[in-house]
């Protein structure tokens, strides 16, 4: 067991973990933050995407101990109280989900995408950059629309 001290969604978290515990297992099983999903566990689907120091990563391909003294943000950390994050709001308004399984990862990737491009996004870029996030339901149309709409609201 190893001591892990990290910050999750703005709150300090300390725990004893086995080195082999994945970040996604730590989030779901130990922190009970079950918004982050496991779709494939083979780094393909993107359902498990979270931010590590503000950068989108697949939490099924990262050890929990690697987050020592770092900042992790999950889907639970986006809303401000009852106010949804603009990306969550846009997914809601544009009906960018059906079963919702891919949605947490989609939204975390989308927020990273918009921030990296400072709001300057076109449809082609959005589609290219969604490569690591797979959706079995929507056909992506409304997801792309939602991201482009949120990019406008989030423009710095």
């Amino acid at each position, binding site marked *: 067991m*190893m001591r892990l001290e990290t910050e999750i969604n703005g709150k300090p978290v300390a725990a004893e973990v*086995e*080195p*082999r515990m*994945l970040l996604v297992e730590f989030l779901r099983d130990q922190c009970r933050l079950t918004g982050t999903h496991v779709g494939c*566990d*083979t*780094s*393909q689907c*993107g359902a498990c*995407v979270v931010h590590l120091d503000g*950068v*989108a*990563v*697949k939490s099924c*391909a*990262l*050890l929990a*101990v*690697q987050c*020592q003294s770092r900042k992790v943000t999950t889907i639970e950390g986006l809303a401000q109280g009852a106010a949804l994050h603009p990306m969550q709001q846009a997914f809601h308004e544009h009906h960018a989900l059906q079963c919702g399984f891919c949605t947490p990862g989609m939204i975390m*990737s989308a927020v*990273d*995408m918009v921030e990296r491009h400072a709001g300057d996004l076109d449809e082609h870029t959005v589609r290219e*950059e969604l*490569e*690591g*996030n797979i959706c079995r339901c929507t056909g992506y149309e409304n997801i792309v629309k939602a991201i482009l709409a949120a990019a406008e609201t989030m423009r710095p």
Partner: protein
Amino acid sequence: MNKFDYVRPTTLAATLDLLRASDEPMLLAGGQTLLPTMKQGLAAPELLIDLNAVSELVELSVTGDGIRVGAMCRHATVATSGAVRDKIPGLAELAGMIGDVQVRNRGTIGGSVANNDPAADYPAALLALDATIRTDSRDISADEFFVDLFETALEPGEMIREVVFPSCRSCGYLKFRQPASRFAIVGVFVARHRQGVRVAVTGAGSAGVFRWTEAEAALDGNFAQQALTGLALDPQQMLSDIHAGDTYRAHLVQVLTGRLVEALGARSLRVRT
């Protein structure tokens, strides 16, 4: 995943000490290949040495005649680095084509090169650009480094510190990707050096990345798509799997090389006018 001990040294010296003092150590870089392999039980190190806190390994710097890329430079860093885009644009383009955003945010050049997956992109760039792989103990030329599928010239316990790329007159990479895995079914890197043209092919060869020397000789004489007419690769030396057969791969190498040469020719014309 099997149990292991985990350490995160912060200096190169401490890393090398750990590497030499332990029985079954493995280096953890981006983890994008190693962690999935450990999940499948195909790798079971007793000690995992995490390189992510070793700051000496993330340096990316311009040298007199090229670029030095530290082993822990992530694909996203190389893809967006102004220095790389300026000096060796084909290398930045290639890094931006690896996997997806999240994989590029973690995966590193050292991990990719050490792994030498036959469908990986970087090996083609290193070979065509005539790069040098600098380890903790020696310099290895790309020509000698990539030995066979998943096999390199690295000795057990040897670590890549950086990759040194000389600049070239022009270069580029074209990739025909397997849409689900995002790896190359065929990837071709062409570089025009003062001493001649180098053409490296990944994804296709049954022994991993290779130089297409016949094409190099033809392009040395005439850097144009037509120079490749009549050249053919032997399908028996190509990989064959459910995604693409050997004859198809041999054909793709020819087509992609031609297209790339055409594009590079047009590009340098544009620069001249």
